[in-house]
């Protein structure tokens, strides 16, 4: 069963890498949804296989909220704002995908060294995948133009962290888990509202052009 969890995690990381190479916003959201679903299914796997894992209902909530609710919401936002593609700001899109692959490799290295430090990882693959997801999310945030992409990047990071939590601790206390989920949801909602505001005031949601506040 553990082998299954690691396979799923690696798949999630690979979907993350695909996402970072995705020019279309909508496809990125789909890929995010798939990736989240994979992460959530790992929670299922753990809760099914071990007693220490998160409760089933939590995993269900996570799946519902993250893999279904948020993509729907984002999709709606994208539709309303009528944005289609995000061409990337500092890194051409294909190249950012290659950087993600490089980061995956780095994650593998980091995970194995962490493994030595922590000595708790059943295998390096899960940690690799989760660190890779964090990196990919951060890279996505740093290289994309659109505000909506930054939200997606943030959510990807969040996924990575969640995955790491799953791998490492077999789930946090229930109430903490719920709180985290609630916070993430609220963050996405508020960010969505502000994205609308940006569109209204600036006529675009390109954050590379939001440089009015500086010290020059």
């Amino acid at each position: 069963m553990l082998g299954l969890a690691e396979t799923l995690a690696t798949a999630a990381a690979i979907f993350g890498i695909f996402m970072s190479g995705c020019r279309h916003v909508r496809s990125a959201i789909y890929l995010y949804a798939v990736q989240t679903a994979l992460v959530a299914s790992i929670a299922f796997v753990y809760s099914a296989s071990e007693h220490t894992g998160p409760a089933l209902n939590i995993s269900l909530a996570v799946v519902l909220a993250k893999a279904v609710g948020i993509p729907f919401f984002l999709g709606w936002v994208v539709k309303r704002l009528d944005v289609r593609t995000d061409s990337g700001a500092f890194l051409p899109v294909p190249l950012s995908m290659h950087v993600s692959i490089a980061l995956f490799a780095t994650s593998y290295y980091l995970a194995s060294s962490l493994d030595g430090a922590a000595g708790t990882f059943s295998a390096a693959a899960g940690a690799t995948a989760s660190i890779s997801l964090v990196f990919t999310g951060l890279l996505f945030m740093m290289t994309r133009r659109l505000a909506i992409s930054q939200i997606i990047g943030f959510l990807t990071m969040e996924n990575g962290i969640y995955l790491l939590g799953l791998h490492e601790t077999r789930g946090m206390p229930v109430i903490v888990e719920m709180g985290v989920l609630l916070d993430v949801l609220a963050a996405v909602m508020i960010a969505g509202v502000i994205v609308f505001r940006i569109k209204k005031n600036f006529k675009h949601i390109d954050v590379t052009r939001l440089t009015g506040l500086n010290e020059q």
Partner: protein
Amino acid sequence: MNSLALLTAPLLLWAVCAVLVKNTRVLGILTAGWAWLYLAITCTLAAPVSLGIEPQVTLAPGFSIDATASWFMMLTATIAAGAMTHSHFFFQEEKLREPRPKSTHIRLFYACAALFVFAMTAVLLCDNLGFLWISIEATTLLSAPLVYFSRTRHAIEATWKYLIICSVGIAFALLGTILIFASSQHTSLSAGSLSLQQLIQLAPQLNYPLFKLGFIFCFLGYGTKAGVFPLHSWLPDAHAEAPAPASAMLSGALLNTALFAIWRLLQVDSACHHGRAAFGSNLAIWMGTITVVAASLFLIRQHGLKRLWAYSSIENVGLMLVAVGLGSPGLFFLQALNHSFAKATLFLLSGNIIQSTGSKHLSEIHGLLKLSPMWGVLLVAAACAATGVPPFGSFISEWLILSASADTGRWLVIFLLLSGISLSFIAVSIHVSRILLGTPKAPGSYRHPVLGSLIPAALMSFLFILGLTTGGFVSSTLHIGGAL
């Protein structure tokens, strides 16, 4: 459970009021009332603890008031009460200007402010790293609408940056929390724990490399929230674009709570070391020092009035972080107390000045001493208090921090701190003298409402009295001698 209800009731009622009451004038007065009531309740609950009558008050499982938290609770409540009272005058004045703020915006502001105070209090109360994380994330989410209040382009930009950068930071903190949780699973408590008390007890058994990793990530996350250089980038934008009462709360209360989180973590870290020079405290001291120096350099070339105070806040955060790193809650609180009051005054006054002169650029404000001497004098006094000049208490708290560093032989830190403090004083005095002195540009259309200076004056006079008595009264109460 009763006292928890007592504590949360005014805040929730306040939020409910904001949703229900349509008339913003009435709402403003009501809000101020709730805020003061909240302050009164906080004081009755927290004072016994802070005076050492009771060791701890447990409100709910995982939520309790200990000594340090009790001081910060009262501070937060005071700043909130002051800011909310002032915001009534502020919005009344704001309504005379174009574009007039909509009443729904003001109501949203009040509602979020109530919940924001709630979240900040939660940070101080909780004994659980998970809840700590949740509360801090909540403060970000609830204060974002405050920053966003004026809906101008700059406000939106600032909100976006605030939200995204703090969220990323907080994500790091989550990572750190998970790692700490993992490290606690290597102890006799194999299920792991996030409770601070348990972590401190278990400290010697923790898997230290993992804990250290977690600590670093938490430090990054909460440091972002506190505005530690180079994670501070959101801070000047958010503080400058938020309406004055919100800036006062962000600077006077929120930064303290973020640092408070770091302080909680450091307790665990130093427990791991049995008081030896711990990694965490060294990290905090050095990051604090770097922050002070960087902020003082930022202060040299400033254009915006509120941005100036924002960088000054960063400088003070650096100092507080050093105090935290030195492991002295008394010092940390003393610095926070002085800074919060001074900075709240400065932001509230700056709001008034910006309203009256119609400009937030330093280069366009002149001769304040002629326009309204009262504000001018208050501004100077508050700037002095913020930069550590006697007779204000910040002088003594800064001196205590330096002295504590000297006693541990950190001369490089002292050198850097002294240069940073001096440089920032010089920079601030250059900017303040430009605003204050000289001939005003257009005194004709200038309005300076008397009520606008009520809260700043009250805060400053409190700070002044505090400054004269800091050493004696306050430090004996805070057991600073013992903490050093």
